[in-house]
């Protein structure tokens, strides 16, 4: 049990989880920052926000992602950045789940904003996989949070 915990909290894993999580968020932000209208279109397709709020979300969300990514990669405010990234991932999973339940196929809009027209069944299958992927990324968040908790306990 103890060795499992030490593996989970090892510095080797921790640094990789932290940088990997940061890189994922930074990579996801870049295409959105360069093309906010395309991202606004993706957000609109989720049909969760009022039309008036779509643009503001499309403009601000990618910059939150890039700041969270930068904090994790550069190693400042790690715990706060991990909490925000976890909250955003839960938000994305929730949005995808709602649309899966509704049977409304959407392009994820996570990394590629110019997805081609694809059959409904294919899009719905992709949405399921994206939820699984986001759950895996949440494991990275959990790792970063658990290690930082440990650092806090033994720190000065």
């Amino acid at each position, binding site marked *: 049990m103890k060795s499992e915990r030490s593996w989970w909290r090892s510095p080797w894993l921790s640094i990789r989880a932290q940088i990997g999580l940061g890189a994922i968020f930074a990579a996801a932000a870049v295409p959105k920052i360069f093309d906010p209208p395309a991202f*606004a279109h993706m957000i609109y397709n*989720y*049909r*969760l926000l009022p039309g008036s*709020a779509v643009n503001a979300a499309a*403009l601000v969300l990618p910059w939150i992602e890039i700041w969270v990514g930068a904090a994790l990669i550069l190693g400042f405010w790690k715990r706060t950045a991990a909490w*925000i990234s976890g909250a955003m991932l839960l938000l994305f999973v929730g949005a995808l789940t709602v649309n899966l339940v509704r049977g409304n196929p959407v392009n994820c809009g996570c990394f590629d904003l110019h997805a081609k027209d694809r059959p409904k069944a294919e899009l719905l299958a992709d949405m399921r996989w994206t939820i699984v992927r986001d759950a895996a990324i949440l494991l990275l968040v959990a790792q970063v949070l658990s290690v930082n908790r440990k650092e806090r306990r033994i720190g000065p």
Partner: protein
Amino acid sequence: MVRLWQAAAVIGAAIFCAFLSNRAAGPERRLPWVGDYPDARTVPVLLSAAAPTAVPSASRPPGVPGASTNEYPPHPDRPWVAISGDQALSLQGQGIPFLDARRTAVYLEGHIAGARSLPIWESTVDDGIKKLYEEGYDVNAPLVVYCSGGDCEDSHMLAERLHRFGFNNALVYTGGFPDWEKRGLPVEKGAPR
């Protein structure tokens, strides 16, 4: 525990950067902060099964697709009616303006010959509609609007926007550019001549 001031700083920095980058962006990449779209929270918003369709006139000569613009009276009570590819072809032959609701970059890759770009997701759309007014275009005359066919809603959204600006006769070519291309009809690439 999350340090709230750090979270607030991240969100504040994000809003500040978003503001700066949006100001610096070109018209094709800029967004107004408050969106002007139909309520997105109802599913489906526009592509209902009961979509109104332009009814072909009984006076149309057999075998001739479409006919005169008298077939398309203004419909101030609803933002758009759907038309088929045959009807779109006929209207193009009569010199009715075609409006392409897709993104500028997509329009430049190929569009219906003579179509004007009015990308609903770009900040230039309202200026484009105002230009129609300035050119003295009759608000009751037909305007054909199209996008990428299939589930594409951009043309319906543009038709709704036109309707709010007072244009009463938007005709949505539901097959859109893919249908036009499939029929081997004239297309153009690049900026309009």
